[in-house]
């Protein structure tokens, strides 16, 4: 190496004081950013709604004419809630596409060089995914009710429904974020969506009780978060005798079974979120 012959230019140094936003301000900014991006991508909001709404508004009423009730619940309402198990996973997986776009064509690297904890980037995206899921869920329930589904609930029932929906969405967003940070290309990610968002729906008691499945598949269904979430949502809105929960747990106390299923979904939500933050942090730093 050649010798340094030129002295360093010396400017009057300002005292070093790093700028740093509060976590709340950084979170609010990240949420605002994701909302602006989502608002400019209407497909992210509308496409996931399409299939569940068609199920609730067209297929469920038609099926209800041949199969009148499942465990005392009218079939149309039963299937309408089953479609929530399609809506939330698809919606969250669509949100994961935004992570890939951020990385490939967006401002992700600028966000990574910001003086904020990188986990906030994941949490900010999650918050907006939940908000969009909430809006979509409201639309789906409204369409199903207008088409004749019968949701009779109490405040507690609404609480079970909401908690199950939120925790399922958190779980699915964790899966989406993890996958988006492990898969390089958008095309490959989209190819993986059906396996994660749709396949579990066939086993989770969406269109029929899990007791109708062969026993190995029924056992498999019981470990899926979607099975627990759907049983909880139905318990909250239509299945007041907790028949879905009883098929999973076989107990007599509905509240205990609901609490146990909620704990299962919550565990999935926490684990998937932690994994997604870890995977994001690893992918962000080479």
């Amino acid at each position, binding site marked *: *190496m*050649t*010798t*340094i*012959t*030129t002295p*360093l*230019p*010396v*400017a*009057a*140094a*300002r005292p*070093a004081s*790093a*700028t*740093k*936003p*509060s976590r709340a*301000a*950084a979170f*609010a*900014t*990240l949420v*605002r*950013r994701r909302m*602006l*991006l989502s608002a*400019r*991508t209407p497909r992210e909001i509308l496409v996931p709604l399409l299939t569940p709404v068609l199920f609730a508004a067209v297929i469920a009423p038609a099926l209800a004419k041949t199969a009148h009730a499942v465990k005392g619940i009218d079939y149309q309402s039963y299937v309408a809630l089953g479609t929530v198990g399609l809506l939330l996973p698809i919606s969250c997986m669509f949100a994961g596409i935004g992570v890939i776009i951020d990385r490939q*064509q*967006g*401002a*992700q*690297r*600028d*966000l*990574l*060089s*910001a*003086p*904020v*904890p990188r986990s906030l980037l994941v949490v900010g995206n999650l918050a907006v995914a939940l908000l969009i899921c909430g809006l979509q869920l409201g639309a789906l329930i409204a369409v199903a009710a207008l088409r004749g589904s019968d949701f009779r609930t109490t405040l507690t029932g609404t609480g079970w429904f909401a908690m199950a929906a939120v925790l399922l969405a958190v779980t699915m967003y964790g899966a989406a974020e993890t996958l988006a940070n492990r898969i390089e290309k958008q095309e490959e990610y989209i190819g993986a969506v059906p396996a994660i968002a749709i396949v579990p729906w066939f086993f989770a008691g969406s269109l029929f009780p899990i007791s109708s499945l062969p026993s190995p598949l029924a056992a498999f269904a019981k470990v899926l978060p979607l099975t627990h979430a759907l049983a909880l949502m139905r318990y909250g809105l239509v299945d007041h005798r907790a028949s879905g929960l009883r098929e999973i747990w076989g107990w007599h106390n509905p509240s205990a079974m609901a609490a146990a299923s909620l704990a299962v979904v919550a565990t999935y939500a926490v684990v998937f979120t932690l994994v997604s933050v870890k995977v994001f942090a690893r992918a*962000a*730093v*080479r």
Partner: protein
Amino acid sequence: MMIEADELTKRYPGGVEAVRGVSFAVGPGEVFGLIGPNGAGKSTTIGMLTTTVLPTAGRATIAGFDVARSPIAARGLSAVVFQEAVVDQSLTGRQNLEIHARLWGVRPAAAKARIGEVVRDFRLADLVDRPVGGYSGGERRRLEIARSLLSRPRVLFLDEPTVGLDPLIRFELLDLIAGLRRERDITIVLTTHYLEEAERLCDRVAIVHDGQVVALDAPHALLAALGSEIVEVRVDEARALLGALRARGVARDDAFAVGSTVSVPLHGIDARDAIDVVTEVAGSAAGVTVRATTLDDVYLQLTSKERT
């Protein structure tokens, strides 16, 4: 020192060693260049300083903050303009600016004033409320540089800021970067493979080759070592000619051959006399040029052993 890098090393899984023990220090207010070809390790070095690449070994600080131990504090003092487009394309320029300002802790009222300032200074008024996806390469670059200044960073990293731009826009941007130096109390680290850019903008440059710093000094000092003039000869047998010119005392150790070109820095010999010797040795068919020494010559001289 505003930036200190001490034996920074990056080895990627699979054994590729992108950076091999790079050390340098950058003073406050200095414009420091990391120059070298694509793949030399410049961007990886910037990545380690901006905490997006984890060093395998070594240490670096920004204003005393260790980039590995206090990454958030280090990031709070700096901003980066990346080599490729790093903007939210579907958002407007203003939205991109607002988000950046807020993430760097600039309060809304101050952010609004600073955005107004950079929009004026960087001539973005006609663009700033349009989605960035419709900007040209030069416009987007102006926006990105403007964005990087919103937090009034102490250290600005410019990673190949002019790559891929047409010459007119490139010169415009170079003026703009030179202006930053004059108008703001800021330390700039610039990576480029256009050596004339480094010569024009930088107080000192580190020439990076194959993951290592092979020279570090002020551009004029690096140029002075090779003398002010170079005789360049194009022949089929470049290495043979180089040996012959050395034997005749025209070329010293710092003469070098790359491909079919021999470059002979002139020390204590008149250009006309040197050309006479070259013509005698290589024949009159050889293409001979006499020109001023540039940083390209310094770079090629330092790395030519592996090229001939």
